[in-house]
Structures are given as C-alpha cells and as structure tokens.
C-alpha cells in the first residue's frame, strides 16, 4: 500500500482545498492558476563574473505545487534558489534570464520591490535555523516583530496570531514556546519556528533550501509532513531544494534535476522515479537510499562534477557518463520532451537503449 497522500491539485481557477480549517492560516487566500514562480533561462555568475555557475536553468512552480530541486554541490541549485528569492550574495550576479513571481518580472527589480514580495509573496527557510534567529530574543517576540512590521498588527493581535501560527506548524504548548529563546529549543522546533515566520504573512510560495538537512531523520519526516499539510490546507506552493533525491521523491510532485549549472531532467515524480531518462538521474536513483537497509552492493557514480563555472563543449556530464557517445562532446545539448511534462537534456534522450536501464531494484 502506497503512502501517497499527495492530493492532486486542479490546475484551474477553482478554489483549492483551502476551505477547511486551514483558512485560519491565511485569510483572504485565493488558490489561483498559473505560475507562482517562474525562472527562465537563468544565468548566474560568481566571483564577480569570473565563473558562470548557473547556465540556463529554467523551472516553474504552480500554485499548490511542491517542486523539488535536486543536485549535488556545485550544481547551481542553491544559487538558483537565492536568485529566485532575490538574495544573491555579494560577487554573484544574474547575467541572463528572468525571475518572475506571480507574473511580475523581478529580475532587475530594485531592493524595495523585492522587499514588498518578501514575506507576503514568498517566504524562505534555510538549513541552520539558529543562525537566522536572534539568540537573545524569545522566538515568539521575533515572530510578533515580523507580524507587527509587515502586517501592522497591534501587540495583542500579533501575540494571538503568533500562537495560532505556532500551533499550525505543530509546536505543542505554543504559549510556552513563545517565551523561549532559540538556545532552549531543539533543531526541529527551531525549524518549525522558521516555517511559522516564513508563512506568517500569507505568502504564496515557500522556498526551502536544505531545510531538513541538519535535522534528525525522525524530525525530518515530521517537517516534510508539515510542508505537505500546509500545501494541502492552504494551497501554498513550495520549492524544495535538496541534495537528497530520496527525500525529494517523498515530498514533491515534480522533480528538477540539476547538474553542473544546468537542468538535466525534469518531470513528475513518478516519471522520474520509474522512468528516468538521463544517465545522471539514473545514477542518482541507484545510489539514493532505496529503503532497504540490509546488506547489499552499494553503487557509486564514478568521477567528480566539473569545477564551478568550467567551460565544457557538449554535454557537461559526458565525462562521467556510462552511456556517452562521441556525439555527446560536440555542440550544446538541447532540452527534449520525451513524455508528458517530462523533459531531458541528453543527446540520447530518445534512445531506447538508455531508457531500458532502469533503477536496479
């Protein structure tokens, strides 16, 4: 029996499943159509233009959808996520492509416009919650500060709302947690506090960048259940960035696989899991946790990813690819649609021989 509790969200204008108790979280929510986030052909340079770390990544997140962005270090997933949030670090710049939120192009938008979007449009949680919280102020105080600044709530109303939010993210005894400082809370609880802060102003998109990597595995399971619940109840769209493909397949509706600054495959999670077409995706599936803890042969993807920003002619995975042919080394490889919403960047995308090499079970 599959534990697949993903509720298929209609891609129409009909109000989503937000009619239940979840509306208490977001008054005035409308589950709309169209893309909440759209990244088109993004190019990002690092080290003040010295290297091109992201080379044409595109992705879309629709309302109520959970999209997983997977890749190892250097794949460009983190920079893409930061660009989507408008918080690229110093020395990095968008060299091409666009970032649009709810139809508005924000690529070259000034700081002020981004600040309007932060909080009420999109919220974010990152890997180490403790480093994003003031260690000497109570977590409740930090949440109410956000509420009072961004939503101009009065003190009592903000306090009440904060307690509601803490309860909505699964914190037991919200009244007690309110007055505790970050050092008194565990990693899982802190991450829930961060999620509460991120959704406090009713955003349409939540970006989670390795949000569960630093958590214990049992707490990780709880947090992804929370994300799924938030999506089910409020139609929140989620961009979930992780290096762990297994985790992404647990939570996400669609998966985008990155390698060396490019998207190499994207599609519905079932397609990616059962019919992966790119050799890198196939390799990832073979090494990912397969839920079998008994003794077995462990597979490895040979080789190392290329240096960040390395210039390579042809396919960027060819050097490590077990299915590489001479054609892989010439010219750029285009994104090809192989199935409904399933696209691959591979010269041999339509090659039956590759499709036959499915995940070893």
């Amino acid at each position, binding site marked *: 029996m599959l534990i697949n509790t993903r509720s298929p969200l209609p891609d129409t204008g009909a109000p989503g499943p937000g009619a239940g108790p979840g509306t208490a979280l977001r008054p005035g929510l409308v589950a709309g159509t169209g893309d909440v986030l759209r990244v088109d052909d993004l190019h990002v340079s690092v080290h003040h233009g010295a290297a091109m770390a992201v080379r044409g990544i595109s992705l879309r997140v629709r309302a109520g959808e959970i999209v997983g962005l997977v890749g190892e270090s250097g794949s460009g997933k983190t920079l893409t996520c930061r660009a989507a949030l408008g918080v690229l670090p110093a020395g990095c710049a968008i060299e091409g492509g666009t970032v649009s939120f709810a139809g508005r192009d924000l690529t070259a938008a000034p700081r002020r416009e981004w600040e309007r979007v932060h909080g009420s449009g999109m919220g974010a949680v990152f890997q180490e919650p403790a480093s994003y919280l003031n260690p000497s102020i109570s977590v409740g105080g930090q949440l109410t500060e956000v509420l009072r600044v961004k939503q101009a709530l009065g003190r009592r109303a903000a306090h009440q709302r904060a307690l509601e939010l803490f309860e909505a993210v699964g914190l037991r005894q919200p009244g007690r947690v309110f007055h505790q400082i970050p050092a008194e809370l565990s990693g899982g609880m802190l991450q829930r506090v961060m999620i509460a802060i991120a959704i406090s102003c009713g955003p349409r998109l939540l970006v989670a960048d390795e949000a569960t990597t630093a958590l214990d595995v049992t707490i990780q399971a709880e947090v992804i259940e929370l994300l799924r619940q938030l999506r089910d109840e409020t139609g929140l769209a989620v961009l979930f960035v992780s290096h762990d493909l*297994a985790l992404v397949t647990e939570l996400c509706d669609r998966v985008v696989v990155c390698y060396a600054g490019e998207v190499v495959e994207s599609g519905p999670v079932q397609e990616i899991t059962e019919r992966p077409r790119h050799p890198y995706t196939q390799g990832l*599936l073979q090494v990912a946790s397969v839920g079998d803890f*008994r*003794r077995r042969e462990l597979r490895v993807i040979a080789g190392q990813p290329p240096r960040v920003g390395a210039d390579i002619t042809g396919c960027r995975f060819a050097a490590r690819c077990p299915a590489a042919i001479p054609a892989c080394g010439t010219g750029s490889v285009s994104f090809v649609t192989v199935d409904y919403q399933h696209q691959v960047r591979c010269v041999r995308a339509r090659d039956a021989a590759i499709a036959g090499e499915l995940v070893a079970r």
Partner: protein
Amino acid sequence: MTATATLPPPGAPPLLAMESVDVILGRGWRAAKVLSGVDLRIWPGEIVGLVGETGSGKTTLARTVVGLVPPARGRIVFDGTTISQLRPRARRAVRRRGHVQLVFQDPLRSLDPDLTVDEIVGEGPRIRGEADSAEIRRRVIAALEQVGLDATLLDRTPGQISGGQRQRVSIARALAADPRLLICDEPVSALDASSRNYILRLLQQLRDSLGLPIVVISHDLSSLAGIADRVVVLYRGRIVEDGPVEQVFAAPRHPYTALLMASAPSVRHDRPLSPRQLRRADTDPAPPGSPEACVFAHRCPFAAAACAEQPALEPAGERWSVACHRREEWGALARNRPR
C-alpha cells in the same frame, strides 16, 4: 561483496566489551548523565552500525571507548585488558600500541591544517618511534593506498584537498597505527549519496581484507545501510535494540527502531509502517512520568503502566536483545493505527 553476514563463532570472546558503562559529562549542577548502563560487545571481523539521533550519546560512546572520556561507572575491556580507568602513562602506552582507533566526524577539525598529509598520516608511527623515516614513508603510502589515494597528495595540506579526500586521509591516519578495532564517528554525514556509498564500500573492503572490526556511528540508517552486520540503536544514552541486521530490519522489536526505519527517506514508497503510526498523537494516553520510566516512553505511542520502569536489555533471539516491556504487542497495535 559478501552476501551473508559474518557471525563470529558462538562462545568466542569479544574483542571489546563495555560493561554497564555510565558516563557523566560536565561538573556540578551542569552534570548530565550521557550514557546509562551501556552493555556492548564487539567481536573480531564484524561491522557494527551504531545509530543514534541528537542527544543519544553516540559520540560520547566513541570517545569513551578510546579513553578521551572516563566512565563514571562500569568498565571497558579490550582483548582481556581493562582499558578504562588507566593512569595517563599507562593509557599512553596502550594507545601507542594503536589497538583502538577513532576516525572523527569532521575532518576539517581533526586534521591539523598546518601539516602535510605525509606528516598527518605518519604521526602515529612517528610517535611510536620504532621505525626509520624510510619505513614510515612506506607505511604512509601503504595506508593511503588502502583508502584509494596516491602519493601525489603527500605534500598537500588539508586545505588543498577535497572533503572526500580529507575524510579518507583521516581514515588512513587511523590505519597507519595498525589498529585492531576501528571506530568511525559519522564518517559519511557530510557527503552526498555517491561519496557516501564510496566510503562505506571502502570500509567494507577494509574489513574484508584486514579482518578489521569496524563500528560505524551514524544518526540515520541510510548511512550504514548495506554494510553493517549488526545494528545497535541508542536512545538518550541507552541501548534499546542490538541485533543482526537481517532480522532487525525484517521485524524490529523496538518501536524506536521501527520509527527510524519508517522515517528514513526512500525512493521506494512501500513501507510496512508509516512514521505516523509510530508517533504519539495527542489522543494517546499520557506516558508515565516517573523519573525511572523507560527513556523512550515520552515519545512512545504504546507506553503503558509497565513502562514506568526502565526495561532492561533482554534477549529476543540469537545475539539479539531489546529493551522494551511491550515488545510482543506494539507491532499489532501500530498496524491498527491510522496511516
């Protein structure tokens, strides 16, 4: 790759035995009991996976075995000799023999950034001082080869090599001391899936070629999956389950073990139990609040009146022990809970 678990012959004496070990860290009012009543035995040639989440005491256990932390109670016996409670000089002599080695969790912190790989890996033999520099060089190169690194790295410093290579240098340093037991503290947590499998495979090869027993400490099951013969589950300083991998994972006897298995992300969504079935819900009765209650009771959906007393580790099969009062009943109860 060997497909069958290597079980030591019955009755053989263990290489390492921890007997009723308590460890207390901190002084005065800040003192906390980090390990309680730990009974652990390691036999030659086996790979043991020690699993524990934050606060379980697993790193403290590793540090206690190698003597960086003295046990408050109990003793540790290696190959017939008690190695806990030694005076510093005797302890140093024992260490120079290199029998038990520890690979630390973070190679960035456990490798001296100012030393070259040659100096780091050769530190053990140099301290022992029993061989000349040419011989030590040979041993360093041999140790590096065993972890799949070659001599070109000899003159590099830790800052000049990759994270995966640093981890392997750390392992090579332990190997150069000619250990008879290797403890690896979270060797793969910071690595991606492919590098993780590479290191795990490497450890397995070391056990196969050297007969070296290895304890792999980790915070989740995926990090020792595939190579462990035996799994030991630690919760808040107590061992709750300890048994052969095939049997424990086919049918865990402790609800926490089952929770760990259910929570682990996997690409195959075919779990026998879901995490929700193994977590306390608000509708479950409150667990017993006595200070001697089972360490897991506060999180256990199946806690009953009997659980007001900490269960002892009792045999549940061949070389398999569990600390749970309700080990026979909770399985059926879990299956009846909503997913």
